[in-house]
């Protein structure tokens, strides 16, 4: 592995440790009577932000209230992040391509699984509504967007990575660049030499 790539992997692997402390994802809500906005912050090990206020509003539409303890993911995510950080540092230090390939594929697989898992929870909460809820809009579901904007009754919901998530994505971009550099560009260079 090129020396510059090794350093990149090292830096990126260490940086993802920050996601343990920073909010990973956020769902910001805006409504005419909430000019100050409401925010749900999703950390790697808990929910934060205005969870209580949002839970108070959810009962009108029959959405289940959100509690950290309901999500098994919060118990293991920190360990997974630390695990990946160690793996990445090792891959950088060993400096061989195969360990890095193993690390990279596990990392991307994890990211895809995490996104799917998040989508699944959003689907569950948005569709499995209490049938005795006061506000019933036929055919309406309250699944927040995976990423982006969606209007849910009087609320506009914005779902985007927070600072932790952005660091994670940044690390993923760096790892991808290293993958391209080591496995694709190098191959091309070798081909051209032949």
């Amino acid at each position, binding site marked *: 592995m090129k020396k510059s790539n090794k350093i990149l992997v090292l830096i990126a692997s260490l940086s993802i440790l920050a996601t343990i402390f920073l909010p990973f994802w956020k769902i910001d809500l805006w409504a005419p009577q909430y000019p*100050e906005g409401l925010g749900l912050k999703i950390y790697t090990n808990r929910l934060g932000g205005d969870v209580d*206020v949002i839970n*108070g509003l959810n009962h009108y539409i029959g959405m289940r209230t959100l509690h950290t303890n309901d999500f098994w993911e919060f118990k293991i995510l920190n360990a997974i992040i630390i695990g990946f950080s160690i793996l990445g540092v090792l891959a950088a230090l060993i400096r061989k391509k195969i360990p890095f390939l193993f690390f990279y594929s596990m990392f991307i697989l994890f990211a895809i699984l995490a996104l799917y898992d998040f989508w699944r929870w959003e689907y569950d909460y948005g569709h499995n509504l209490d049938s005795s809820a*006061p506000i019933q809009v036929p055919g309406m579901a309250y699944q927040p967007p995976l990423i982006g904007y969606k209007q849910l009754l009087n609320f506009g919901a914005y779902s985007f990575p927070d600072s932790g998530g952005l660091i994670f994505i940044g690390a993923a971009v760096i790892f991808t660049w290293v993958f391209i550099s080591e496995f694709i560009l190098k191959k091309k260079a070798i081909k051209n030499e032949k």
Partner: protein
Amino acid sequence: MIVLGLVAGMMITGCKPKGVGSAVDADAAKKAYVAPGKYDEFYNFVSGGFSGQLTVYGLPSGRLFRIIPVFSQDPTTGWGYSEETKPMLNTSHGYVPWDDYHHPELSQTNGEVDGRWVFGNANNTPRVARISLKSFRTEEILELPNSGGNHSSPFATENTEYIVAGTRFSVPMDDQNGDVAINSYKDNFRGSLSFISVGKEDGKLAIAFQIRTPGVNFDLARAGKAKSHGWFFFSCYNTEQANTLLEVNASQKDKDFILAVNWKKAEEYVKAGKGKKLPAKYAHNTYNEKTHSAVSVMENEVLVLDTRELKDLCYFIPCPKSPHGCDVNPTGEYIVGSGKLAAVLPVFSFDKIQAAIASKAFDGSFDGIPIIKYEAALYGEVKKPGLGPLHTEFDANGNAYTSFFVSSEIVKWNVKDLKILDRVPTYYSIGHLCVPGGNTRKPFGKYVIAYNKITKDRYLPTGPELTQSAQLYDISGDKMQLILDFPTTGEPHYAQACPADLITKNSLKIYKLEENKHPYAAHGEKEAKVERQGNKVHIYMTSIRSHFVPDNIEGVRMGDEVYFHVTNLEQDWDVPHGFAVKGANNAELLIMPGETQTLKWVPDKVGVQPFYCTDFCSALHQEMQGYLRVSPAGSNVPLTWHTGTVSK
């Protein structure tokens, strides 16, 4: 000929003197307008006068934000009606539902407005109140013994070491025999100046000492500042010591006095044990934000320094004529006396007063207190300023603004050279005025607001009873410009203003539920319950959008006293809940997020009585209701409660 005569007659009777026009600034709309969604520059705290409350306006818009209940019951918020707030209006005469809030005074630090508290005086049953500018709630009310009419009150020293209150009506003292002939005034009636200490961190009030004075009427006062810090100046009238027809009998003398009090000297006397502890009964009421309840304690003694016994404590300075305002300029050097019936404005010099005391330049004495020679204390007089001067405040540029009740105007003049710079009419008959920070070492200037006594044709008429009018003038230029005319509630006697950002950043949004230590609080729906203690039924009720728990209660009987202790479980901004039950001889409850308040209800008939949330809290506010079943006395219907079971 007849036609000519008629026309001439009409022209003569239709002529008004010129120059009485309404000169509104061309830019007035722009200067006074605060666009929707934008904030005012200043909070304006305006006394409600005979309403007993404190009103909060914004400047320059003149918009009314809030009426804070202080000395009068307020059925809207349940102030003085709920079990928790009733003790705040307790006095040595029992529960008093009304008083007259005359003057607001903002707390100061280093001679500058600091935005922590605003104080107020009750004029009828003498008391001083402290209002928090975090919660905009009245936190403490302290009654004043040995006092009649608390007009010269409350006034702060420049670091809020003391809030000072002086009496308007001299009376026999509480520790003396009060059953005396009224015309024995000169022998038996005395005045009291109360020096109330203010806790540095928590603002807690206590009467540090009272100065027992000759029997005169004290009108207004101001603390010395900067070089004159340590002294206090009180205007006094009725030095004729009349007890009847004061309108005539108290206006006889050419000069009354300003009483200069050396309170640092008073502190020395207190330390040296020269004060006398005299019996007195007065109420001290405090509201606790954590238990959301008030406690009323009866004090039973007060420390008194008597001017007949202690020398070098105070001095009289002659002042024409029945003085009202007594105002100290920002440097603390000049003291302006406004004599209601005077033709000049005397300005006294603190340095000259000190020199006169040192050299004993006295002109006899009054009740044992030396009278300083008028010329020895005088810096100069503002000549022909207007008719009926009442009150003066200052800007940051060495100018003074004095209100004139009789000639209905504000006059701007320079303190150093005593020259008149400008005059503007007020509509009509101004009482006091307010320059933001105009009584402190660091006036903010920008505006002067006139608070008037006569409104007549200024606004759409509303029958015989009219609002009081106020005018806002821009004083940023050389000449004062009228930019807004706005009505006020109650009868403002005085007002103070504070820059908005000193207060906005500390303004409380909710009360934290986990900090709620109310003895009957329910911190969640699981804690809601109903308990019977003899004939008292305590309902621990919760409220949250949009239901009460419990909302069905049975087993109450005739002869019971029912206490609805309602906790607002919300922790979101601007979600109060209200509470009322049919037929209650009581007001509503208005409960803020995280708070608990109690409504006492004595059922007066058998049946099912509805209760409901009175504050529009949510989309399903109309569904936020409940029922309470009242059975006959001696009935054995069990005490049950729930929310959520469907009917049979």
